[in-house]
């Protein structure tokens, strides 16, 4: 009997749903065993009955629930709670669901300041009131799913890696647990490290790293040691897939594209603080930590929920 799956998207761009499609051929093997009973991105299914006649939100019972996206407003909070009630296993898919994601950068500002900026202070906007009619009110900040309800499986990434979606779904079908190993991107990265940066200057990511595609990976210098801000040391591994026919080296995805890691897989273990760890890593290899622009936002780019980003405390006068 196929496993019933309910999928729900909240505060998200939709990229993680594309990742499910991006699984490619393995999806064909998986599909007969999956029965999607609720998935707003694919199927027309209204929460309160087809004509809105029902009083209570209706999400069908399912064995596996997948939630992508963080929780920004009351409606999303309601949907999250309903999903938890109806699903036996709940998967948080993507960095938004796991850590708040890009939208959680807004957690640096109080809600009122955001409203003022968007509806009144922006130069290209005619000042007006904050719209309220027929809209679910926003929560005070962006929440990760596990701040609202307990989550069983985390699959981070922005967007995530199709390989680990397959691994997680297969593990669940076989009744096993799925958890990413607590390793950093650097543990997985094959680039050559000399533990000392070439110069103290931090370079802009717009300048290309030095590489030679004809050479094997272990002859390319670590991007961080070349002077680029790479979040590998403080980011959970898992984005990389093995090269060739599955027998080559594992290369993290951004590194493979000759770009430094941006940190989308989030902190290596619960409770870690990547901003602090990263600043330490930068100064310990001899780069000038003062040159990191907009440190709070840059080093918490995908992980602003769970109180990692919050408005700075102000002393009452």
């Amino acid at each position, binding site marked *: 009997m196929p496993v019933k799956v309910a999928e729900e998207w909240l505060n998200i761009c939709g990229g993680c749903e594309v990742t499910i499609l991006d699984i490619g051929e393995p999806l064909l093997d998986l599909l007969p065993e999956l029965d999607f009973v609720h998935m707003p991105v694919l199927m027309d299914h209204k929460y309160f009955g087809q004509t809105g006649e029902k009083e209570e939100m209706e999400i069908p019972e399912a064995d596996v629930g997948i939630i992508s996206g963080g929780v920004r407003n009351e409606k999303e909070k309601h949907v999250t709670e309903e999903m938890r009630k109806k699903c036996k296993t709940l998967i948080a898919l993507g960095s938004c669901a796991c850590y708040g994601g890009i939208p959680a950068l807004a957690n640096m500002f109080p809600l009122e300041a955001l409203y003022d900026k968007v509806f009144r202070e922006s130069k290209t906007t005619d000042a007006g009131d904050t719209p309220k009619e027929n809209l679910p009110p926003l929560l005070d900040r962006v929440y990760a799913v596990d701040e609202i309800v307990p989550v069983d499986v985390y699959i981070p990434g922005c967007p995530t890696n199709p390989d680990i979606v397959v691994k997680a779904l297969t593990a669940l079908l076989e009744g096993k647990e799925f958890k990413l190993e607590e390793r950093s991107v650097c543990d997985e990265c094959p680039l050559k490290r000399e533990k000392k940066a070439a110069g103290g200057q931090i370079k802009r990511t717009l300048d290309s790293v030095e590489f030679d595609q004809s050479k094997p990976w272990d002859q390319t210098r670590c991007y961080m040691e070349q002077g680029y801000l790479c979040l590998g040391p403080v980011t959970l591994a898992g984005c990389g897939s093995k090269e060739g026919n599955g027998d080559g080296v594992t290369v993290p995805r951004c590194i493979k594209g000759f770009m430094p890691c941006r940190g989308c897989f989030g902190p290596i273990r619960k409770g870690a*603080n990547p*901003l*602090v*760890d990263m*600043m*330490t890593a*930068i*100064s*310990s290899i001899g780069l000038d*930590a*003062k040159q990191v622009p907009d*440190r*709070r936002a840059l080093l918490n780019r995908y992980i602003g929920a769970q109180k990692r980003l919050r408005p*700075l*405390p*102000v*002393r009452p006068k």
Partner: protein
Amino acid sequence: MADEETFEPVIVGFCCNWCSYAGADLAGVSRYQYPPNLRIIRVMCSGMVHPNLVIDALTKGADGVLICGCHIGDCHYLDGNVKAENRKEAIELMLEDFGIEPERFRLEWVSASEGPRFAEVIREMTEAVRALGPSMYKV
């Protein structure tokens, strides 16, 4: 929450085993008076105090953090205190990111023979932190 008059700052002090902790001992056995606001944690070297510990302390209830180590050149492990000094700049930047006043964090060198100086450093720091008032992360 304590009001301004009864406010007693909580200061967490990381003292290295070889110089500063011995310095604190000396201050004790020589009966030098210093405020009781300091909570000393003995570490093997000032160079092992990860910035995470400093930020964690300051965001979870401490009003100030003091790291004490040997004078430069005196380190039992040769260059542990140099590492601590290199981290100081990064820690000061992070205090800014967390909205914590820079005066709440200090790195001081106290040798095993400097009991009076240890007492003096604690007095100075306690007064500086008391003047700032309670940490804004205190709930």
